[in-house]
């Protein structure tokens, strides 16, 4: 009981000490919180983007086969399907049609993709949220709504009007923002692709372990093809988001250094007033360990408040305010920035790392100079 009361008294005293030097401590907490906020924002963002991307890719095909001509992707003949289908382990092969459409009116690039659900429904499209916001309609100022018509220019220069029959849900905006789903017939009409070709082929296999073998067999049968496994795409996403996270961290280095200097200044020097206070406390019967305990609480209160506030602000910034601060760097260079809310994915390991890199060094840094002061003879206060 006595030990708890002692902790309580010392914590009480610490809080009142912090409050007595509120100008210095509040500015310290603000800077500290800002640094944690920036670091945590980068962490939350990069991690959630990766998680989101991998969730999206979970539903994507295990193996995609593209055709390369002169090192660039070209349309693949649908005649390849028959022989690939007969490779042992392949469950199904289907052609995919997709491409990019530049709309001069809105100055944006859209991803256009064939949706099997629109089979025999020529003239109808389903669009992503970004398209509804960006694409000018007959009424010009309003956003696109269901039953509005969007004109498309075909490869030959003629105009094909397509009617919006659905809008993709905003939950999936990260990948669907710029997406326009069309029927196969309309796709071929707009881009002028004959029925004998597809953009790529997607494969389902019975056993994922056989993927490299199947990919090898396809390459041998058709040397002009390039099979891409889902894991490879995931790895690319990871690398891209890590790289972008790294760019932000480099930008943040300046503020990190500023914080380190501030913390160092605080750590290496106690003010004359603080030293005198330590002397008084020792003289009136506080042990060195009591003073260190007080300084420990002081460091812990400052850094924990900054840590928790920083994390909370970063959470609000990333998951509720659509990462407004560094969205352009992290999301890419598209004209159509998706307005989406990331699903909160928080990695405990990252939080613990951040904790150990900020809270612990700061707390230790506050104790060290106090230890030096606390070990002096208390009679120094008699001579002050």
């Amino acid at each position: 009981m006595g030990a708890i009361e002692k902790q309580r008294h010392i914590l009480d005293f610490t809080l009142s000490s912090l409050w007595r030097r509120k100008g210095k401590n509040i500015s310290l907490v603000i800077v500290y919180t800002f640094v944690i906020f920036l670091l945590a924002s980068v962490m939350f963002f990069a991690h959630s983007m990766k998680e989101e991307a991998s969730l999206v890719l979970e539903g994507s095909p295990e193996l995609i086969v593209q055709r390369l001509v002169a090192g660039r992707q070209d349309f693949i003949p649908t005649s390849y399907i028959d022989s690939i289908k007969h490779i042992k382990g392949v469950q199904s092969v289907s052609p995919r049609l997709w491409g990019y459409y530049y709309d001069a009116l809105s100055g944006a690039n859209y991803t256009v993709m064939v949706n099997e659900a629109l089979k025999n429904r020529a003239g109808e499209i389903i669009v992503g949220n970004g398209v509804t916001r960006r694409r000018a309609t007959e009424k010009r100022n309003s956003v696109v709504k269901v039953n509005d018509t969007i004109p498309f220019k075909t490869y030959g220069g003629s105009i094909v009007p397509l009617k919006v029959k659905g809008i993709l849900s905003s939950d999936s905006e990260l990948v669907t923002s710029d997406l326009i789903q069309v029927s196969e017939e309309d796709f071929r009409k707009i881009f002028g692709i004959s029925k004998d070709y597809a953009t790529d082929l997607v494969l389902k296999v019975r056993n994922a372990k056989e993927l490299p073998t199947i990919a090898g067999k396809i390459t041998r049968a058709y040397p002009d093809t390039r099979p891409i496994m889902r894991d490879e795409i995931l790895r690319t996403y990871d690398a891209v988001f890590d790289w972008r996270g790294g760019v932000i961290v480099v930008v943040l280095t300046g503020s990190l250094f500023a914080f380190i200097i501030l913390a160092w200044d605080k750590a290496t020097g106690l003010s004359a007033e603080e030293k005198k206070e330590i002397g008084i406390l020792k003289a009136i019967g506080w042990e060195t360990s009591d003073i260190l305990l007080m300084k420990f609480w002081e460091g812990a209160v400052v850094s924990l408040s900054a840590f928790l506030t920083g994390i909370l602000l970063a959470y609000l910034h990333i998951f509720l305010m659509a990462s407004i601060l560094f969205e352009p760097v992290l999301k890419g260079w598209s004209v159509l920035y998706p307005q989406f809310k990331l699903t909160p994915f928080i990695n405990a390991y990252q939080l613990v790392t951040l904790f150990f890199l900020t809270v612990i060094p700061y707390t230790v840094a506050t104790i060290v100079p106090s230890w030096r002061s606390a070990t002096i003879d208390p009679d120094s206060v008699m001579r002050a």
Partner: protein
Amino acid sequence: MIRLSEVRKVFNAGKPNEFVAVDGVSLSIDSEKATALRGPSGSGKTTLLSILGCMARPTSGRITLEGRQISSLPERFLTKVRRETFGFMFQQFNLIKGLTTLENVMLPAYPSGEMHSSLKERAMELLGLFNLSHKESSKVEWLSGGEAQRAAIARALINNPSIIIADEPTAHLDTRLSKELMEIMGRLKTEGKTILIASHDPVVYESDVIDQIVDIRDGKLVSSGSV
């Protein structure tokens, strides 16, 4: 009783600026009596007082408190002895600015782990005793000289020490307040406390409260005797 035997305190020993502050002092201080350490500035009064109050260790010599040798105790035990046996009053009062009078008075008892409610009750009693109840939540920097002095005495008494040590307590007080302080010291002595005051103020050493005067000069004991 506190007994000092051949106590010597040397600062910066072995260095060119070596300085002997207390030089072979042997002395007995009776319990429940008031003793004044008298001497000019730099005579070694404060150093001797620090050694007596377990704030500093002697370079050599022995100190016994009620028969128990304390000069060789490790720091932790020495702090305990200091907290439980001595109450200190400093020349500048050394109250902690920014804290209230009540918090300042309670401060020496924080490490003891006493229940907050009972500690506050005792502190309030002491403030009442020194007519400071109405200043309970005033910051100490707002107190007058006399109030600050009484707050410092209240703080010295919070752990109910048997020995009160005061270093030049009247240095910043006028004659009226100095006499008031000596009256309080007299009251404390009657209650059974041992009083030890270092001072070169006649108001202190000529006071009726003082039973024994110890004269020090250049770190050496010049004379010691009952008044």
